[in-house]
């Protein structure tokens, strides 16, 4: 019997409200209506998944019939609920393409257009409006950006199914895959200190059960099919631009995504993501920015000392030599502590064969070790110090190169390898010269000497060049970089202006003052302030390097 208030039991002194509170608390209805078996759920969606595993050279893929995706977004919630994800987490999302071209007549003979077996008539009318919902999850790429980037071997592409799996226990939480995946698929989970992503519910598929999103879609718009990877490399999906999954998405050539989007009609060229103009700054990655600038400053100082050491007094040489490993140690500590799983930091070298991040880690560690050696050699006055210094310099520059390639391979236009190498290289020069001039001034050196003059003028030229290089993006006509420009001119304009001021003060004003006075307290002040401004400016520039990066992505929705 369900909760019933028995008003005759007035023997106890409970007031009526206590009885109602008791009735509310009574959960006997659960026993009354509970069922110990649900029939008809398992096996219900099995016609939407393949009966067999892919053959050699084939893989599973998501197969989306866009005509059947009407935007109910049940797939998003089904993924969330049936996978036990965190409160705001789902491995699927749904975006919207809008556009307004009247379409050309459909050419039904075109081979890549597949007619959908919809109940509706298959005689499409001209489409005056595009209002296309796009459900998206991991594209289980043939050449996955996440896997290629991962330094910790926390990804694997299943040799049988082609499913790209994230190995949660192997993940160190460096978040690098969130930059190398062009589809924003891996998402960092702060609580766990790792990223997580869709695995096509591979355990379900293994048991012949449909993935959660497939189960969730009322219209059977999502299914799993088998595709030849060679075919995928050859041909992309039937949208306007065959090099993109859908308008607005990244160039498919980057990773060769496997998802197929089908539609009865081509999308008009005017179709664009509804959120195309909503550009918000990216993550600042402060620890990475600090690590990069500090490690590059250390390399800069070392190389400056190694190359220009002839002009240094002994004490200047010694201080510089000791500073280099100290700064490098700080950079390494920061980079380890920024990991979601710092105790697993050692895994970061495992991906050496394919990951520039692993290579960066190895090179930076090597640089640190050698720089300690350089310092010891300098202190001890070893005769082999020149050799050690040279080796340290080479490894230091390799480190900077690896750092640059970490971002260079992301495929983002603003992070083109040439662009990043130039910027990182100039950071090395600016910070190295600024650091060296500060060491000199602190030990009482005179700047009005040929050596001091060339040092400060070199600094001035390097900083001005860096500012010019950074500024050059504002003249871009590249569509993707224009998004960066928009950010730099709006949301990030204040930061960018501060960066310009810091660079100008530290790299132009301070060196000129130091040159003018030559030595004494003012020269010391100018050199120290110059170093601080140059480093602060570089930190801000590096933060903008991350924040202003706006990569193409799958269509989003109104926010």
């Amino acid at each position: 019997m369900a909760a019933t208030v028995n008003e005759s039991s007035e023997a106890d002194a409970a007031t009526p409200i206590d009885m109602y509170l008791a009735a509310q608390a009574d959960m006997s209805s659960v026993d009354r209506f509970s069922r110990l078996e649900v029939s008809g759920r398992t096996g219900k969606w099995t016609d939407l998944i393949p009966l067999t595993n892919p053959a050699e050279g084939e893989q599973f893929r998501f197969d989306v019939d866009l005509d059947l995706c009407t935007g109910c977004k049940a797939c998003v919630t089904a993924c969330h609920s049936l996978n036990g994800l965190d409160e705001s987490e789902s491995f699927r999302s749904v975006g919207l393409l809008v556009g307004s071209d009247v379409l050309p007549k459909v050419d039904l003979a075109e081979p890549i257009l597949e007619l959908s077996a919809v109940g509706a008539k298959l005689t499409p009318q001209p489409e005056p409006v595009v209002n296309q919902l796009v459900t998206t999850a991991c594209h289980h790429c043939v050449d996955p950006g996440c896997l290629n980037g991962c330094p910790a071997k926390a990804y694997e592409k299943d040799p049988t199914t082609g499913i790209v799996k994230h190995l949660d226990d192997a993940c160190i939480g460096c978040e690098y895959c969130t930059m190398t995946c062009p589809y924003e698929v891996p998402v960092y989970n702060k609580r766990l200190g790792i990223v997580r992503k869709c695995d096509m519910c591979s355990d379900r598929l293994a048991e012949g059960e449909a993935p959660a999103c497939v189960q969730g879609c009322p219209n059977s718009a999502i299914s799993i099919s088998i595709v030849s990877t060679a075919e995928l490399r050859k041909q992309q999906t039937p949208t306007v631009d065959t090099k993109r999954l859908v308008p607005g998405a990244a160039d498919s050539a980057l990773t060769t995504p496997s998802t197929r989007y089908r539609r009865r009609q081509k999308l008009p060229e005017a179709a664009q993501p509804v959120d195309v103009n909503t550009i918000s700054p990216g993550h600042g990655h402060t620890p990475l920015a600090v690590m990069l600038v500090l490690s590059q400053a250390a390399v800069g100082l070392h190389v400056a000392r190694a190359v220009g050491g002839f002009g240094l007094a002994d004490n200047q040489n010694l201080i510089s030599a000791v500073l280099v490993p100290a700064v490098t140690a700080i950079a390494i500590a920061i980079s380890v502590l920024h990991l979601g799983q710092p105790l697993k930091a050692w895994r970061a070298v495992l991906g050496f064969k394919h990951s520039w991040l692993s290579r960066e880690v190895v090179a930076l560690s090597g640089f640190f070790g050698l720089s300690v050696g350089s310092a010891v050699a300098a202190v001890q006055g070893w005769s082999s110090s020149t050799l050690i210094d040279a080796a340290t310099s080479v490894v230091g520059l390799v480190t900077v190169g690896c750092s640059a390639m970490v971002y260079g391979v992301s495929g983002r236009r603003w992070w083109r390898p040439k662009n990043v190498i130039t910027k990182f290289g100039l950071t090395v020069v600016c910070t190295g010269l600024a650091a060296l001039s500060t060491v000199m001034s602190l030990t009482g050196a005179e700047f009005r000497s040929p050596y001091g003059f060339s040092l400060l003028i070199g600094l001035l030229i390097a900083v001005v060049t860096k500012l010019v290089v950074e500024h050059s993006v504002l003249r871009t006509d590249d569509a993707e970089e224009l998004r960066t420009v928009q950010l730099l001119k709006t949301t990030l304009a204040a930061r960018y202006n501060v960066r310009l001021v810091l660079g100008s003060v530290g790299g132009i004003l301070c060196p000129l003052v130091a040159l003018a006075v030559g030595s004494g307290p003012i020269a010391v002040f100018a050199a120290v302030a110059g170093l601080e401004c140059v480093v602060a400016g570089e930190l801000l520039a590096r933060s903008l390097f991350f924040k202003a990066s706006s990569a193409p992505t799958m269509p989003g929705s109104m926010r």
Partner: protein
Amino acid sequence: MTKNPIVSALFKPMHPSKELDRVTSPIGLGQIPVSKEADSIVRSVCGFCSTGCSLDLHMKDGEAINISPSPGYPVNTGSACPKGWEALAPLEADDRATTPLLRDSLGTLRPVSWNVALNEFVDRVKKVQSDHGAESMAFLSTGQIPTEEMAMLGALTKFGMGIKHGDGNTRQCMATSVVAYKQSFGFDAPPYTYADFDESDVIVLIGSNLAIAHPIMWERVLKNRHNPEIVVIDPRHTETAAVATQHLGLAPDSDLDLFYGLAQLLIERDAVDRDFVEANTEGFADFANHVKRFPLDQVADRTGLTKDQLVRLADTIESGQRVSFWWTMGVNQSHQGVRTAQAIINLALMTGNIGRPGTGANSVTGQCNAMGSRLFSNTTGLLGGYDFASLDDREHVAKKLEIDSDVIPQEPSWSYDQIMSGIGTGEIKGLWVIATNTAHSWIDQMDCHGLLDKLDFLVVQDMYHSTETAVRADLVLPAAGWGEKEGTFINSERRIGHITKARTAPGEALADFWIFKAIADAWGCAEMFERWRSPEDVFRILRDISIGQPCDFSGVEDYQMLDESGGVQWPFPAGSTVTADSAERRLFADQTFYTKNGRANFIYEEPTPVAEPASDDYPLTLLTGRGSVADWHTRTRTEKSTVLSSMTAKDAYIEMHPVDAAALGVELNEEVVVSSLRGELTARVVTTTGVQPGQVFMPMHFAELNRLTFPAFDPYSRQPAYKHCAVAVRKT
């Protein structure tokens, strides 16, 4: 666990993969997360919209921890929209009302005990009534609570407390269909069953964005195996129109011209089912005369459609073997909604498209228990679909309830708008709002807020203390929500479904039923409700009252039977049995209607102009509607789910044709000010040819929208005409 941030940053779970481990459920749910492993399920009809999907609530140690849609249930067969999947999240919100809250002398709402709250309620309502007359206290209720609770509220207020005026938010959604059906069929009787979506060869959707508003009904349209013609009649090119085979983007509120013109076209080509009309209807000849005044040219001119479009639709209806017509808020929320709905009914009648599989003039309802409210809320109609004005009906109901028939008012309540304007005239001084959010949803919001502030006593009974209405209350009563209580809903196709208590309510929140019981005690009319001991007792009383009515469900034994049979559609009189064939039943297969003579009526009227046409100062027509499937009405519940919130726009936007946007010089996502004679708001522009030039669209879920809307009402249903007002848009 330590709170030291460095330590907690270092020591994250070493084996996070465990969190995503799944097990194969031994009870047939497939693979489910280890963290959500269920020992059993209970079934419950969803508490959002009127589709009435069944959800399997995954139970662990006596509490619901997860949801998946019920396979095998005749309505949704294993699918649900995101709201259904996320139906537990709103129960866990931080802003749940967990104790009664009373506004203190400093104007702050402070927690008080239930006894203090009940005494305050009774004292202040009685004071309002003694100062200004019993009729000066009114209530506004909802289509969101179970039928048993609605009946209890209606009986308590009207028979126990002497309250005369009460209405529900169903006035904002279904009133038009109710009146249309009553006048045409003799009873508020949507004739269809969802199987009609599967059976039609022509599906005509009018003012209905079914794909977004009712995704699970839309699923059935897409799975129709008869290759149906799908006709969408809507000024907007909606998600539904995008998949239609014919989209008639008519001028807003030109529906009556369209349907009369279509009737004329069909008559001209003799596409009338003469036998059916002759045998089963009244007034066709006069109707045929009436529509002669709607020739093709004129209709094309007034609707903005081409003659080809009109002729093609007439061809489609003529050649269709099983034509079904479906309408939703685009018809109901119009200044001439009742006549428009009846114009649709007329088309179905004259072509004989009623009572057969795949046919019907079918109103798709809004809220989960709109029909429970229509039949049993005791507001416009006397409990059980009876008439307050009829002495026989009053005595019949009084006898069934074992009460004195003199306590039953002799006329229906004022409608929602009359109650609101009654506040303005000072005739209403106290208001009790139950499970609705008037301050957000009522039309012409600036006026509405002024009215609410004018009340002597405002009580809000809700799950949340944070709704736009609750924050204005003098007293907040904390209510348990769907999932925390028992009862029944009646869905769009007349299916009575059971909801099961599967969660402990937070704090001292009580099911509305127990709150009503407690108020009856405190008021001193408890003896009138001695038999109303539990929701299921009330279900039995209502079942008894329904005997002999079209909605007779006296064949339903108890909740168990509803739970086991997959819901039961009315009528289901005593002696009916649940069989495979009884799962999906439509009305009027016997061609007998509920009017006195058993014939359906052709009802029509001259179209009237909209109340506020676009003007030089306000040149755009503002259309409103559902924006996203993840939003429900005023968002009080859906915004509590992070997943649902992530699917929908947080801030207001307005859809605008690129031509209008270019004329204003605004681009996609640019912020604009939208103003009407009554108020203004800021919103971001979405340029789309989904709206026509001269028209703009805004989703109804944004709280500020109703600052703009114009308080026009259908004269018969008193339903507000949310779908039309004049606005201007300017750059910020």
